[in-house]
């Protein structure tokens, strides 16, 4: 016992045999199955794992933030003080003051009703007993610390007036307000653009060095881990698979799972199609305007140009990768090319001028032009079975098919995307993210399209699943001679998938060219920053 308590005193946080269970209608789910962890003062411990590995639930369990049906057992000591089973009052002395957290979603973890100055002051007022007036000085200091420009003015801003990166900085400022010993960062940069991601990580590192606090970094991104952490814990299905220093894990991984994770980086290249390949889809001088505001009687008076005079030529069998940060207009461009949005410009599909086609004229062509979305959770209607979802297009475009024929086609399509045909009687919520994305792909390929626009199809997936989906997309392309437009912010995926790359910013093309040229010798400064931010980490 004495040896144990001595051991725990050295560590900021010491976790022994921690279990997290959830009671669900289908019985108990063991999210975390008895894990051991130690966090030493001033170090950065990365907890790595794919979604569902229990990495976030471990920390939520320690902080007493589990959902109502969750239970935590075992032991978690903060400097020798047991946190598990502590009543909320006791827990509040530690959390928010000694141990603080930042979350993944900077868009939703700030309260939209309060100014950021007030929100940062909140922990100071609660834990240090300051008044809001006294806290103001400290808030200014914190905003300066996390690198928010014009902190005096920004203090009175509301969250919606700030960008994602700035909001994440505000979250960090809140977490630092009480000078914690331990900062738990749960996927702090996942929702951010690559360039912003690098800035936030640099900020975290410099702050850590200044204050000497320990950081627990929960992430699925091994690039970040390698760059940022001292030690790594690899988790899988609620258990610790392997732990060790960065060097040990990255250079001599012992477990197969760790090796697999390290190898899951998308790889391979796409050969460009022959020069003689015909152009299948072309958009010249594409512009999209969105109306902002406007009333009932006066119509809209202001508009925002999301895509500004962009031209794209897609050859048969080609994959064009469109890269850009959020707000660059890349998704809008994809939808405009499919004529799903009101837009101006000239459009040709398979030698047909479709510039003036309205919705009903486009309808027969929809079969040839398909779209796969980013969010595998949102793109499938939760009230339909998988069979209904994937055969819906057949109902529209091949109404002569009988029910049995449609069923046959559904079975074939599901097999093609590597799913069990029995899946067609199930509902989307019973599938994992990767499986859902396969269903979404099945819905597109069942119509035997010529062009598929892939809008961030892998961004919401774990790296290893990402690899499988990329593999699947490649196979389908080879088999059916598909042409892809691949929209993504993830340069590694773009590099593996496409033979031609378009870099977009603020609705305009910054640079375009064959993949190798863009990745090996970018000309524009913006492309260079993008590359540096993405590949420096890895």
């Amino acid at each position, binding site marked *: 016992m004495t040896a144990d308590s001595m051991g725990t005193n050295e560590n900021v946080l010491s976790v022994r045999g921690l279990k997290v269970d959830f009671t669900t209608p289908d019985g108990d789910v063991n999210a975390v199955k008895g894990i051991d962890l130690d966090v030493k003062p001033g170090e950065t411990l990365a907890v790595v794992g794919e979604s569902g590995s229990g990495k976030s639930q471990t920390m939520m369990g320690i902080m007493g933030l589990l959902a109502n049906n969750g239970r935590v057992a075992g032991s978690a000591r903060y400097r020798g003080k047991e946190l598990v089973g502590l009543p909320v009052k006791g827990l509040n002395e530690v959390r928010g003051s000694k141990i603080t957290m930042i979350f993944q979603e900077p868009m939703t973890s700030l309260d939209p009703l309060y100014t950021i100055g007030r929100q940062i002051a909140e922990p100071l007022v609660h834990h240090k007993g300051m008044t809001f007036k006294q806290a103001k000085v400290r808030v200014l200091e914190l905003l300066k610390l996390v690198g928010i420009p014009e902190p005096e003015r920004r203090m009175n801003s509301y969250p919606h007036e700030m960008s994602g990166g700035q909001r994440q900085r505000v979250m960090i400022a809140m977490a630092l307000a009480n000078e914690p010993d331990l900062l738990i960062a749960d996927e702090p940069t996942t929702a951010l653009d690559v360039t912003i991601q690098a800035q936030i990580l640099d900020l975290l590192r410099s702050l850590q060095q200044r204050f000497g606090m320990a950081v627990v970094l929960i992430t699925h991104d091994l690039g970040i881990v390698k760059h940022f952490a001292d030690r790594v814990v690899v988790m899988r299905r609620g258990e610790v698979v392997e732990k060790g220093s960065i060097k040990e894990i990255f250079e001599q991984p012992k477990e197969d799972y760790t090796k697999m994770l390290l190898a899951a980086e998308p790889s391979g290249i796409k050969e460009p199609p022959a020069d003689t390949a015909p152009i299948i889809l072309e958009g010249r001088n594409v512009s999209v305007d969105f109306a902002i505001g406007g009333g009932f009687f006066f119509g809209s008076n202001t508009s925002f140009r999301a895509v500004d005079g962009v031209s794209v030529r897609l050859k048969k069998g080609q994959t064009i990768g469109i890269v850009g940060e959020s707000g660059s207009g890349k998704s809008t461009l994809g939808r405009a090319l499919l004529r799903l949005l009101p837009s101006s410009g000239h459009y040709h599909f398979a030698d047909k001028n479709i510039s003036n086609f309205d919705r009903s004229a486009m309808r027969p062509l929809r079969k040839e032009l398909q779209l796969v979305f980013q969010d595998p959770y949102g793109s499938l*209607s939760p009230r339909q079975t998988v069979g209904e979802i994937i055969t819906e297009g057949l109902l529209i475009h091949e109404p002569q098919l009988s029910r049995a024929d449609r069923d046959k086609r559904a079975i074939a399509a599901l097999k093609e995307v590597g799913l069990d045909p029995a899946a067609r*009687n199930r509902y989307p919520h019973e599938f994992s993210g990767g499986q859902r994305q396969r269903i979404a792909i099945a819905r597109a390929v069942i119509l035997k399209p010529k062009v598929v626009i892939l809008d961030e199809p892998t961004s919401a997936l774990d790296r290893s699943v990402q690899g499988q989906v990329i593999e699947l997309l490649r196979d389908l392309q080879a088999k059916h001679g598909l042409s892809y437009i691949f929209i993504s912010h993830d340069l590694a995926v773009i590099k593996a998938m496409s033979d031609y790359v378009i870099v977009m910013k603020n609705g305009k093309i910054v640079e375009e060219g064959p993949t190798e040229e863009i990745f090996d010798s970018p000309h524009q400064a913006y492309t260079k920053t993008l590359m540096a931010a993405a590949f420096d980490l890895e």
Partner: protein
Amino acid sequence: MTDLTDIPTTLIPPEESKGRSLFQLAVIRFRRNRAAMSGIVMLTLITIFSFFGPYVISHSYDQVFPSYVTVPPSLEPLPKAETLGDVMKGVADRARVELRDFAVEDDSFTATIHSDQPIDPRSTRYFDRANEFDNTQVTATEEDGRTLKLTGEVHREYFPFGTDANGRDMLARIMLGGQISLAVGFLASLVSLAVGVTYGAISGYIGGRIDNVMMRLVEILYSLPFVFLVVVLVVFFGRSFILIFLVIGAVEWLDMARIVRGQTLALKRREFIGAAQALGLTDWQIIRRHIIPNTIGPVIVFVTVVVPKVILLESFLSFLGLGVQAPLTSWGALISEGANKMQSAPWLLIFPAIFFVVTLFSLNFIGDGLRDALDPKDR
């Protein structure tokens, strides 16, 4: 690699080839909610009582019992044995005969009457004329017809809920009131459901100027005073059962349209709607196949709130005298009548009120249970 792909498949038991839909999951959650389940049981019992009860009891809702006006509720048969004697005496007086002997055994009576003159056997019709007696026959004639022995059947009535001021059985009237109140409640809710969901989904999905126009129309209808609208309609078309639920449905759909429109606006941004557009579905197909099924959760919950609201509205109309016409009645009308005689005959108020309150409670519990069961946050 292969190891990873099999994780999700192992989570799904292979023998279970049919998936559980969100709706089925909601049903499972709902079943576990005791209050909501007892609400369902109570509502079913009340429905059975209202719709099948009239076939079991012998009185009809418009049958008048002049002998039993404003009788308090009792489990004993009426008239009671002691009062029967008085009734018989009264009848004998009217027939100008003397009652010598009177006895009641089960459903028949025996009586001996005497007069100074021979009694005309036809005077037995005096006995039949009373509500309580029937089929009176002469069994023996004594003293040259001056004494007659009579037998006949006794009518004894049960009024467990008492009778109203017109001598009608409250039990039968509450059953009828239940039929009308429940029917109005559910039919008017269906009207508002059909109109509101369609209107709201179209308005929300098409959006833009059409949405603007459609929603302004809703606001204009909102601003019309409800009672005024009803009075005008009643004056023009007369009072009728159909009119009542049309009027109520016509007012209630406004709320439904707003709720569905809000849901639709949120759904419209979801990617599966975009996917449907990319598949080439027409607007109407998208509304029918994707928008409406996905609004069903909040809509069902809202309907369970609308049903009691409609029943209350109908009661309010009946209370004002604008509801169903006598001899038809509804719980609202019964409560209104009962309220007028609260002090002299409290049972006229208490019994319909109990049924009404229990129904409203049940519906509210069911609504609560459904909201919990369908709450997307619980998924």
